[in-house]
């Protein structure tokens, strides 16, 4: 029989080693998988994407900015750029870095793959919003144009990705989302979020944590150099202007969209705040709710105009049972918060 101390330390060591090797996301295996992607092709594709985005925004891409995006030293970046120039993807003839038509096409393919994959993750999987971008960032390099086309037709040729960015068509057409930064929206004008910038990831995670998503109605309350205070979907939000500038909005146009995502009105609320015993009428399901979950809601008959009564709450506090079309259905708090209702007071007045 081995000495228990020795046996224990060997086993603990082995377990620790396994953990170091295979820990999800941070283990050596995961890192190695990740690093494998950082080869030259990936770097050049990331550089193309960056230059394209700069051109779209009217900024000037520089060697430094490219090096920052592809996590490489300036020397290596310069080497990469000259290789790309040899391949006729970029031209630096007039001192600035430009995309050639071939480079633009390649960049659009990458962007298309990225945004389609984000759409796929949002619709068909259970990954959290904050993870979509990172996963798409890795997969965009692995998809061939044929695979991307197949993916697009499987998803029903979507037009926008879940962040509100337009997805380029196979022939390379692209329009802009047409929004302006939230900070430029005049005080009191109702607007609608059309786009959340998903880079840098930390900023995006904060916007997601605030519960913001494309399609949400907003109205600015206060704006100063320190903070932006605004209403969104019945909640007051407070953000630093740096963060707020990553939100693009349009001044509320009168479109068909208003039918489902009603403009901000004082008596709209979300279902999770309906007190037990009260009735309310459904205004719509938040745009954030997608894929299987949204279809489930519709299957249950949660549609604009449906009357819902909050019936009882679980003794452990979370799911609440609602009477929906004569059936008693329990929904969790986070789900009920996706269903917008007209406030119960309005119900009483009628």
């Amino acid at each position, binding site marked *: *029989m*081995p000495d*228990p101390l020795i*046996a*224990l330390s060997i*086993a603990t060591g082995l*377990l620790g080693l396994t953990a170091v090797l295979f820990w*999800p996301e941070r283990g050596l295996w995961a890192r190695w998988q990740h690093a494998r992607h950082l080869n030259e092709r990936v770097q050049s594709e990331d550089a193309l994407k960056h230059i394209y985005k700069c051109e779209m925004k009217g900024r000037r891409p520089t060697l430094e900015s490219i090096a920052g995006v592809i996590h490489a030293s300036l020397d290596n970046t310069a080497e990469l750029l000259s290789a790309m120039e040899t391949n006729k993807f970029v031209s630096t003839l007039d001192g600035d870095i430009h995309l050639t038509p071939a480079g633009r096409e390649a960049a659009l393919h990458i962007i298309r793959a990225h945004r389609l994959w984000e759409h796929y993750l949002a619709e*068909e*999987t*259970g*990954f959290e919003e904050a993870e979509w971008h990172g996963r798409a960032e890795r997969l965009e390099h692995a998809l061939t144009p044929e695979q991307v086309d197949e993916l697009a037709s499987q998803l029903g*040729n979507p*037009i*926008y990705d879940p962040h*509100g960015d*337009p997805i380029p*068509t196979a*022939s390379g*057409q692209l*329009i802009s989302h047409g929004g302006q930064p939230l900070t430029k929206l005049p005080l009191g004008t109702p607007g609608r979020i059309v786009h959340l910038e998903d880079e840098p990831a930390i900023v995006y995670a904060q916007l997601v944590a605030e519960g913001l998503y494309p*399609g949400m109605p907003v109205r600015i309350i206060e704006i100063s150099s320190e903070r932006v205070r605004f209403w969104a979907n019945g909640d007051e939000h407070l953000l630093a202007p740096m963060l707020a500038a990553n939100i693009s909005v349009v001044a509320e146009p009168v*479109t*068909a*969209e208003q039918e*489902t995502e009603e403009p901000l009105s004082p008596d709209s609320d979300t279902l999770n705040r309906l007190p037990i015993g009260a009735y309310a009428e459904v205004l*719509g*399901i938040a*745009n954030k709710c*997608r*894929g*299987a*979950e*949204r*279809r*489930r809601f*519709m299957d*249950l*008959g949660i*549609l*604009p*105009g449906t009357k819902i009564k909050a*019936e*009882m*709450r*679980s*003794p*452990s*506090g*979370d*799911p609440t*049972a609602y*009477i929906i079309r*004569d059936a*008693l*259905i*329990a*929904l*969790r708090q986070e*789900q009920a918060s996706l269903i917008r209702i007209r406030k119960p007071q309005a119900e009483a007045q009628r």
Partner: protein
Amino acid sequence: MTTDNLTSNDILKTAESLRWQIGREFHDRLMEDIYTDAARLADRAVTRPDEKPRFDLDRAIDRIVTSRTWGFPMMILLFTLVFWLTITGANYPSQFLASILIDTMVPILHNLANAIGLPWWISGLLIDGMYLATAWVVSVMLPPMAIFFPLFTLLEDFGYLPRVAFNLDNIFHKSGAHGKQALSMMMGFGCNAAGVVATRVIDSPRERLIAIITNNFALCNGRWPTQILIATVFIGGLVPAYLAGIISALAVVGIAVLGVLLSFVVSWSLSRTVLRGEVSTFSLELPPYRPPQVLRTIYTSLIDRTIYVLWRAVMFALPAGAAIWLIANITIGGTSLAEYLINFLNPLGILIGLNGVILLAYVVAIPANEIVIPTVLMLTVLMTGVNGGAGAGVMFNAQSTSDYMSLFTAGGWTLLTAVNLMLFSLIHNPCSTTIYTIYKETGSKKWTAVAALLPLAMGFIITFFVAQIWRLFAG
């Protein structure tokens, strides 16, 4: 007309530019409009009594069973009652079945075999091996299932079980699972294979997989007898006689509770690692209460659950019985195959606080947990040569606690062996019936492998650490 000059290319181009104008999420919008239209039509066509409140009795019952004060106590009381009825109620029919199928039938079959002049190895393989294992599984398994499943189905039929899921959902939600997992887990206490089938009520793919993989941590009916026996013999023996009953019962309950805790822990880590990307939705319908249809319920639960599970168990017990008899009776150079295997497994067994006999019993008892103890006893007798067995390859149960104790002592068992056997019995691979059911339900080799190997690996790790730490402090 200009349209005559339009080429298909022009049309495609126009379509491409128009598609940017149809707005965001138009698929969703279209679908929502279709649904809304359908609902509007239905509302217009169907007349219903104006604003009729939900049936009052339903409401009254719901107020009680989901109330903050009474919800949980009632639940615990009801399930304790179900388990108590199952365990005590199954005792007598089990003994009765065992006395008929084993004590009476085995001698009769042997006489018959002698009368028609079957060679000893054929009658041994058929009667002492295959028949005995099957009879064992049937007599241990059938009575509790025939009581548990109908009781459970009655509660389900009445409409109470969805309320249990409603009450408990918050805890399951925190571990990334679905409230209805409470139901499949309860069912798992009867039989894991039936528990795996019961996960069909969970309609979200991710939560259903979690429920399937963790169902094994619900201590099934085939493992209760092992737990109760070991707890009575070893744990009960530690304390004065008047406390023995309660302490050993507490030990068994402790193991069952540990199983529930483990299933939460495993659910939590699965939902955050390998199952992270699976689709997850939640909705829980609370159907109206209705008087249970007792006869139909008993009939369907017997046919659908009891007979179904029993049939599969029998199909797996037959080869297991043959294997047990064969390894004990095939000898190479005067030593039986079983001895070779036990000596081979012994170092590993000792390392995790068990021994080779127990490990071999768990290997041959993969088809049915019910035959672990009889196999352990048979193999112990084979290895030690103490008096008490019924012959090589013939499984048996001892008569009294002291008989068990003397056999186990002869096999070199200590308190550590007992504790680790209880742990390993809870945390090891599911039986082959369950594994097969998991494969049928998931249709995936990968998830079946995870469900089978994850608990096995956990069992080895946990028993190993218990054994080493025990030895460190107990010398």
